[in-house]
């Protein structure tokens, strides 16, 4: 069984974390474009994207059937499916895998919902350890301004309405995001997250991210060609 240890695959895994509105997805997308242009094989894995599990997650969210425990488990199931299907095989093939959100999102959200931090860390022991876990640090007020200014309609679970922080969805979102940010901050040391100051310009952040990633790519082949021999059955 694949556990939380360092992987021995030829590929690399870079993941981005941060509260909503930290700009992490923009940064990951810019990183992806650069890596492709440099000639690397890149595979992009989204959070909550396993088609099979997604249907169950959507049903649970729509009908508000999820408790903190089942919310945690269904997301773990989804990440397990992504790891078994979309992360380990490309890593074995020598690709660079990029993931927008990873286990730290679960640790932050589930912990904020009252799930035991120890249990949820053990739950995710199957996960592959990232080459670099980036954490985009931004003050809560900055991220809230970005999110609440740009978006109509917050969703029930996204706003943490399930844990009764406030009857007002926007207020609940603020409180919930604050709780999640506190958990991220505590994880910086626990997991050695690489902190990026997300109040700087997009270009400055991207330069720093590229420099850090580039250091890890010495052994990663560009335009890798693998001849696979397989038998027809």
């Amino acid at each position, binding site marked *: 069984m694949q556990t939380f240890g360092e992987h021995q695959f030829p590929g690399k895994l870079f993941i981005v974390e941060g509260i909503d509105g930290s700009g992490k997805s923009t940064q990951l997308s810019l990183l992806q474009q650069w890596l492709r242009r440099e000639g690397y094989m890149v595979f992009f894995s989204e959070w909550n994207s396993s088609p099979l599990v997604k249907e169950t997650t959507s049903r649970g969210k729509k009908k508000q059937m999820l408790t*903190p425990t089942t919310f945690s488990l269904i997301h773990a199931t989804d990440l*397990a499916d992504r790891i078994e299907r979309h992360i380990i095989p490309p890593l074995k093939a020598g690709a660079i895998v990029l993931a927008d959100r990873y286990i730290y999102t679960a640790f932050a959200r589930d912990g904020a919902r009252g799930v035991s931090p120890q249990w949820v860390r053990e739950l995710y022991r199957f996960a592959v350890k990232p080459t670099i876990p980036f954490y985009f640090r931004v003050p809560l007020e900055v991220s809230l301004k970005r999110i609440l200014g740009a978006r109509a309609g917050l969703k029930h679970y996204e706003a943490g309405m399930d844990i009764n922080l406030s009857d007002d969805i926007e207020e609940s979102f603020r409180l919930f995001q604050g709780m999640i940010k506190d958990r991220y901050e505590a994880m910086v040391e626990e997991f050695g997250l690489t902190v990026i100051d997300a109040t700087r310009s997009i270009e400055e952040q991207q330069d720093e991210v590229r420099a850090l990633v580039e250091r890890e790519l010495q052994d990663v082949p560009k335009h890798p060609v693998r001849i696979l021999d397989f038998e027809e059955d």
Partner: protein
Amino acid sequence: MESRANRHTFEFYGQGMPDVDLSELQGRLIVIEGPDGVGRSTQVSMLKPWLESSGHAVLDTGMTRSALAGKGIKQAKAGITLGPISLTLFYSTDFADRLENEMIPALRAGFIVLTDRYIYSLIARAIVRGMDPAWIKSVYGLALKPDAIFYLRANVPDLIPRVLTRPTGFDYWESGMDIHLGEDHFDSFVEYQTRMVNVFDSMIDEYGFETIDATQSPDTIYKALQRRIGRLLRQMG
């Protein structure tokens, strides 16, 4: 030490789950475990009316899938599209949904929850599929410790005739065909169920199973279960 007769309180195996106040749980949780074809559901179907006629409200559960994850698991199994870790966790989601939405509310209402299988079958399936035993046991640290776990035990040669009395015969999953243990359903069934029984046996002391020899007649097994459950319930007062 206060005796359970006076003051019955549930415990979790491990970290448990948030939003459950254990002091509110009044009922009793009784588990019937054992491999496929051992006769668990026959016993549950006899025990339920007996308990009800004795004045206990009973929730029998375990055969159906949860409202949340049941459909997804069915689809996954139909297409055999999930890897072993994902399938293991999908089962745990399904279990947690049933625990929180069926079993715990029934216990809160003072019911006797009689469940056909519990976490032990799920743990055994995971271990047989190569999962780390410490990992899967810690995942199921969310579960309540039952008041009694009756392990209906039989060796594989005794299971075969029972499985063949059912129209489905050797089922794909009960034969562990997903993990390629044998040439056909029969070879695979023997190997898979042998491994399952070994894992169940290894859990007897760890989890405090009360083992019942399931090669006896259904009526003898039923009487043994009645005797033990009767003793448990007399302490309820």
